[in-house]
């Protein structure tokens, strides 16, 4: 178009944030609030990345959030609530989901159907009821989790350089568990197998078998949910991401949607600017990248000769995590009429999490599901006499890589159908006759909207060697290009809404400190 060039942007910014996912939004809000000149670029026409919503017919579906950990009630605010309410005063509203989860294990040899309440003591009681004699060991799990949470806060406060003496003295249990898997520590605590299975219900939110998932990250997540409850926004995730959008503009930050970064310009190891597919040229010395290191080093850094060898090695050493498969169903009967009594269901063939994980590596219906009946937390989220059901499972990207476009719809529909049947069998409900709207998202869908490498939304796998502890303690050492920070689910705090939001704050603080130091020196 003749006047497209007129629409190009050319300007300098203190910081350019690439990507308006959770990490990009919190980072941009922080910097804009501090009065820096900040620009956030997003390739989609909405904020949020996977934290969004979409409308079909009479329904507005939540795209990916099941519940926020780290939000918490007014009287016991978690990090995210403090960020949203106290720091940014976002115009949002959250409600607590009614129960922690209902775990249904369908294997006849392991059959289980338990509903876990929120509250650490309540959870311990509920497990004791199911598994008499488990109380003491399960209590230790939560005590440990609390100490580990405090240790994380301490390490964070030192910028990843904790004093070994303090760690030894104050957080010795953290030190002694930091290198182990959840399985190893649960065994060491003497938690009975069935109580482990119940405690491991949330495992799919981290997406690694219990034998591989690092204990410190798993137990703090469980403790966070138990202590603070699970919370969801009343207007879906799009509610708080759009509240961020508004706040960033109020603070004087600039946001450009439908604007895809083509090049992060680097000269002599230092960031000098950003160019977009749209034709914009921005000067900046600081970039906070909400895109993954994988995408950034392999695609965005320009010229390629500026990508240090260690950056490629870093990316190649990590294990790329999971992407997903979601059925979004708008049903023409109420949750009550359908007998859907809970908000969150974990439906697992068994609690052999290795076998479940393996089922995510082949193009077949996976054996573990996490399902949400939104109306059981938000009764008015759809018209009277209807409800919204999301059925989520995970996949490695590989099994989807060879699906041909002409087979794609059949493939996903068949898998979805079997998952719906499995859901019906496990819950004893009948939902397929009530489908009014249905959408099925696959790894390709997540790639389409986020442009993440292989559609991955679970970042790098947090096995002990690459879990939060070594990542936090490598802070600073993994900056390979001056002025470049990452933020979001691929970064130091691991994936998940709360982690990505919190990570954006850390990256923004680090960048802010550097800019202030530079100004002081000038």
């Amino acid at each position, binding site marked *: *178009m003749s006047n497209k060039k007129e629409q190009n942007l050319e300007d300098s910014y203190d910081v350019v944030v690439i990507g308006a996912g959770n990490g990009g939004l919190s980072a941009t809000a922080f910097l804009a609030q501090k009065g820096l000149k900040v620009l956030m670029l997003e390739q989609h*026409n909405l904020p949020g990345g996977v934290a969004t919503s979409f409308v079909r017919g009479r329904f507005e579906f939540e795209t990916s959030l099941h519940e926020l950990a780290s939000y918490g009630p007014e009287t016991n605010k978690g990090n995210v609530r403090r960020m949203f309410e106290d720091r940014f005063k976002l115009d949002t509203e959250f409600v607590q989901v009614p129960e922690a989860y209902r775990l249904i294990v369908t294997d006849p040899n392991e059959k289980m159907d338990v509903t876990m309440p929120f509250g650490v003591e309540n959870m311990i009681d509920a497990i004791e009821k199911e598994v008499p004699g488990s109380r003491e060991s399960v209590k230790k799990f939560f005590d440990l989790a609390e100490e580990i949470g405090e240790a994380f806060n301490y390490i964070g406060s030192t910028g990843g350089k904790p004093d070994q003496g303090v760690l030894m003295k104050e957080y010795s249990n953290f030190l002694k568990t930091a*290198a*182990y898997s959840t399985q190893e520590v649960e065994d060491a605590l003497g938690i009975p197998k069935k109580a482990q299975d119940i405690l491991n219900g949330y495992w799919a939110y981290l997406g690694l078998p219990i034998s591989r998932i690092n204990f410190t990250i798993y137990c703090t997540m469980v403790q966070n949910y138990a202590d603070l409850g699970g919370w969801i926004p009343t*207007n879906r995730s799009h509610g708080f991401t759009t509240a961020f959008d508004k706040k960033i503009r109020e603070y004087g930050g600039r946001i*450009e*949607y439908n604007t895809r970064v083509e090049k992060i310009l680097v000269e002599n190891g230092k960031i000098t600017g950003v160019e977009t597919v749209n034709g914009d040229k921005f000067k900046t010395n600081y970039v906070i990248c909400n895109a993954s290191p994988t995408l950034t080093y392999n695609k965005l850094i320009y010229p390629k000769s500026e990508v240090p060898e260690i950056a490629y090695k870093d990316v190649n050493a990590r294990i790329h995590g999971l992407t997903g498969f979601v059925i979004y169903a708008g049903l023409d009967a109420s949750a009550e009429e359908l007998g859907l009594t809970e908000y969150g269901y974990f439906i697992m063939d068994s609690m052999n999490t290795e076998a479940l994980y393996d089922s995510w590596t082949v193009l077949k219906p996976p054996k573990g599901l996490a399902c949400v009946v939104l109306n059981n937390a938000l009764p008015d989220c759809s018209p009277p006499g209807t409800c919204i059901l999301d059925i989520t499972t995970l996949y490695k990207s590989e099994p989807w890589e060879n699906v041909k476009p002409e087979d794609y719809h059949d493939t996903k*529909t068949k898998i979805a159908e079997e998952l719906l049947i499995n859901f019906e069998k496990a819950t004893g409900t009948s939902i397929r006759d*009530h489908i009014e709207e249905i959408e099925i998202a696959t790894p*390709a869908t997540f790639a389409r909207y986020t442009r993440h490498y292989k559609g991955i939304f679970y970042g790098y796998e947090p096995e002990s060697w690459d879990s939060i502890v070594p990542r936090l303690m490598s802070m600073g050492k993994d900056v390979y290009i001056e002025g470049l920070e990452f933020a979001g689910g691929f970064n130091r705090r691991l994936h998940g809404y709360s982690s990505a939001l919190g990570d954006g704050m850390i990256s923004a603080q680090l960048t802010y400190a550097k800019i202030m130091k530079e100004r002081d020196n000038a």
Partner: protein
Amino acid sequence: MNEGNKKKLNITVKSNTKDLFAFTKLVPNRMKRIERASSEPITKDPINDLARKLHPERQFLIIDAIKEETRSTKTYKLIPDPESETKKLSYFRPGQYLSLKVDVNGVRITRPYSIASSPTDVANGFYEITIKKEENGFLTNYLWKNWDIGTKIESSGPEGFFFFERLRDLKNIVGIAGGSGITPFRSIAKAIIEGKIDARLTLLYGSSEEDDIIFYDEFKEMEKNNPTKIKIIHVLSCEEVSLEGCEKGFITGEIIGKYCDVHASTFFICGPQVMYDFIEKELNKFNLPVKRVRREAFGEIKDILKYPGFPKELADKGFKLKVQIGGLSKEIPALATESVLVALERANLAPPSKCRSGECGFCRSLLVSGEVFINPISDWRRSADKKFNYFHPCASYPISNIEMKIPRDL
């Protein structure tokens, strides 16, 4: 948490020494693994490749053949433009549309057109779209004069939600089509015959004159060869009818009841806006569940004055739109009775758009100040967008001077 209890906890996983040693090795081990890893760049991403094949941001096409269907209708066969980056057409679900981008005398506009060919023909390298010339149609007048074999056309990927979904829909499909609204049903019928869709189609097709019936022979042939799968009933609204076996008048509840097992069918409706208003009332008589009636987005509302809630006193009013798009700010004129998108297109400032019905959200823009009228029947905005003043210009009409920020085309 009880302080006393916490102090007592002293965990040992393997042994005190081993546990502490394992901790001290965490960072060095991670560094070692990184140092030992390959330094090869990653160049492939098959999942994004699949996503782009399914949902290309744009397709560059060229007209390969033109067929006159009726006195006012033409079918355009579109193939990839060999001089472009489009090597293969994107696969689609029968019933989906393409949003074409056309420069009409220097004004760039978009229009959604249902794909009329079978998805199998994607493998044969073509799409077909069938366009009816509208009286005083801004775009179609231009197309009739200028589109010829070899004309290059830019298109979106396949879009829209008007397709058979076997997890939701019954195997008896009743299509209700008016005028050029038959085009998606040609694709659906072909897919049924080819075994791509396991369903039966009964099509009630309304035309104003016999000469206006599109695909008459083709459907007759399909029906003849597949009597258990395809059935078409022509409904003609003109006075004189010579065609045998057709119904006269409009597609009424009575006609629907006569040819269909109403309560064991899923209805798909595609046609002009006036037909929707009419059919809606007729179908209401059957009290069908919402899920049994699927509607194609009907495109831009042409006569907004007709709809309740629109401030009629503004019928002749014009307003100023202050528009920010990327680095450009401009003030442009707009009419209350035309969508904000049309005003933007006329000024060559259009944001990306596809459905032009308020449904796809592709043109989502920020209303900084001022007021727009949004017809509730085409208000598909997210709840938070309503709260934070985001709107879809294709389904919004200015009723004051407004200031807005719109996204650029990517």
